[in-house]
């Protein structure tokens, strides 16, 4: 792959477009100038910092450091997803397990199949994509699960009252929640290249790669993501539904 070199001056020049946003905000009194400033500053600081971290990991070539970084991503992702699925009791454990499993299983498979070599250069960005997308899928699925339980209490208890276990009573909700978690990525995979160009491909094309190479790498990533997102949604929902029930197959009162 050919490399690109971008000077700080070029980056600074892109700020002109942020100025356009600031002018729009000021002119239409949207009062977003401060937020825009914070966003620009944070993106600069966070991305620069992570750039140095990743550079250090690439230089060290240590798989342990890669594992530690991915573990950090899983922890951060699990807390973020839990924040979006507050109505699910005890969701943190299931989410953390779902993200870890999705990351480990997909990366292991990709390495075993020889798609990538076991190098930080591949593992860090692919792991990050897998964990990020799994986090979104788990959050969407668990949110749906909480909605399903909330709106379906009478139906769930009616089935429990016929001698259904909590697992049997939750079967339909679990299926529908799983679908909610997986459908956004399936849909965006269907429209990819038509409605939008995925980031990896855009980045590779700008960096000067052959379009066909960019397409192949993008396909690998899309397909890996499908697998990991399905795993994350399945694991998080299959474990988290238990939080709504007691061991005696009773539906818990809402918190």
């Amino acid at each position, binding site marked *: 792959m050919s490399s690109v070199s971008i000077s700080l001056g070029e980056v600074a020049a892109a700020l002109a477009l942020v100025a356009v946003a600031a002018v729009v905000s000021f002119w239409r009194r949207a009062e977003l100038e401060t937020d825009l400033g914070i966003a620009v500053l944070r993106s600069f600081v966070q991305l620069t910092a992570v750039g140095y971290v990743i550079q250090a990991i690439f230089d060290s070539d240590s798989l342990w450091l890669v594992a530690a970084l991915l573990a950090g991503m899983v922890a951060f992702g699990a807390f973020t997803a839990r924040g979006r699925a507050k109505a699910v009791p005890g969701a943190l454990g299931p989410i953390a397990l779902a993200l870890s499993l999705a990351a480990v299983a997909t990366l292991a498979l990709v390495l075993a199949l020889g798609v990538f070599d076991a190098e930080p250069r591949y593992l860090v960005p692919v792991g990050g994509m897998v964990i990020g997308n799994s986090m979104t899928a788990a959050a969407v699925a668990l949110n749906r699960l909480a909605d399903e339980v909330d709106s379906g209490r009478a139906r769930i208890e009616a089935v429990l009252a*016929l001698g259904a276990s909590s697992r049997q009573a939750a079967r339909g909700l679990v299926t529908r929640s799983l679908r909610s978690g997986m459908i956004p990525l399936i849909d965006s995979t269907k429209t990819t290249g038509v409605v939008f160009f995925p980031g990896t491909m855009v980045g590779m094309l700008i960096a000067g790669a052959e379009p066909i190479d960019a397409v192949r790498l993008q396909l690998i990533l899309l397909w890996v993501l499908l697998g990991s997102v399905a795993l994350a949604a399945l694991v998080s929902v299959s474990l988290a539904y238990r939080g709504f029930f007691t061991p005696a197959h*009773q539906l818990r009162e809402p918190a």
Partner: protein
Amino acid sequence: MLEGVDLVLRPETTALLGPSGSGKSTLLRLLNRLADPDEGVVRYHGRDVRELDPLELRRRVALVPQLPAPVEGSVADNVGYGPALAGRSVDAERPLSLAGLGREFAERDASKLSVGEQQRVMLARALALEPEVLLLDEPTAALDAEARDAVERALTGLTGVTMVLVTHERAQAERLAQRVVEIREGRIA
């Protein structure tokens, strides 16, 4: 919500009568362990219900909910649902006729029936478990007079099953029950 309740239910029809919010539905939910009391014990045939398998208990002490909550599928699917969970198959005709529904209902889509018919499907679904006790949580509250009469006729015709009926309607309690227990503000009045 409930306090100081000391009650022995005998093999007859008992009505728990009280205004909404008095705690009578909560009491009913303790009997099949959809909920547990914070303090005190519920016994079934002398045994603490917490020592029993809750799923087996719910098959022997079956509940008809206040609002019909059919599962997806035909009336026969609904009637067979409980027994199927226990690994048994059942002929839908007998429970349906006990609930006052003809065999022609068996293949109809349960979600397309009137609320009154659906409520009788709920009764048939509970009866298909061949329970010892039938818990009825305001079984006619959502029904018009005609549908209510049909459900009450079905209940009056049942034999060999102990019934516990929750109702806010004194006339209904007196029509259906041998014994009326009044509940007010979480206590037996």
